[in-house]
């Protein structure tokens, strides 16, 4: 199962990111586990200065904005290819 980290204190924007991840995963038939990273020092480990941030398998893919469902689909679909390497 692909792990996705939503980085942010838990405000409505963070919640929207998590909702978009859920929608994107459902659309492409992928199972994802959403981990909410809300502690400032934990967010800092990712190098994210502006939230909301999103990481796929620990790699940050965006920060400071709400990514679209289409963008998230692309990041999720790219993940299995990485695992095959």
């Amino acid at each position, binding site marked *: 199962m692909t792990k996705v980290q939503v980085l*942010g204190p838990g405000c409505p924007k963070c919640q929207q990111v998590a909702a978009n991840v859920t929608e994107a995963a459902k659309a492409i038939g992928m199972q994802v586990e959403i981990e909410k990273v809300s502690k400032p020092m934990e967010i800092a480990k990712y*190098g*994210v*200065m*502006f*939230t909301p941030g999103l*990481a796929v398998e620990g790699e940050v893919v965006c*920060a*400071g904005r709400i990514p679209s469902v289409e963008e998230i689909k692309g990041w999720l679909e790219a993940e299995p290819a990485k695992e095959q390497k």
Partner: protein
Amino acid sequence: MSDSQKCACEPSEVLFFPCSGGSNCGQIAHHAAVELHKAGRGKLFCLAGIGGHVKGLIESAKAAKVLVAIDGCPALCVKKTLDHAELPPRIHIVVSELGIEKKSGHLDFSDEELAVCRDRLAQELQAWVAGPAADSTSVS
């Protein structure tokens, strides 16, 4: 979200990337950025993280509207670091080209020298606010 936790959901429109290197000009660049940060004109950002390819910092920088590169000298390390990360600065100044002689290993500078750099940056920011240029602005 707890009441004590500050939301960082409003990315700064302006990010400062100063040289901070081992010369008077590097230090002037750094202190000018600190002053403008404290004045609320933008946020001091982590150039080292960009150079270190820290993905979270690179993605955070992409959320800003204006990246300000403040180089100390013609080596242009700041601009080159940002360009390498595909983060082209919209405003770029070089302290040693503002009439301030670079002295390697000398970290002291005068208030007047700092003011020259700080005021030039403030001018450039004001010009951007008045009408953002489509292309990068290089100042010498």
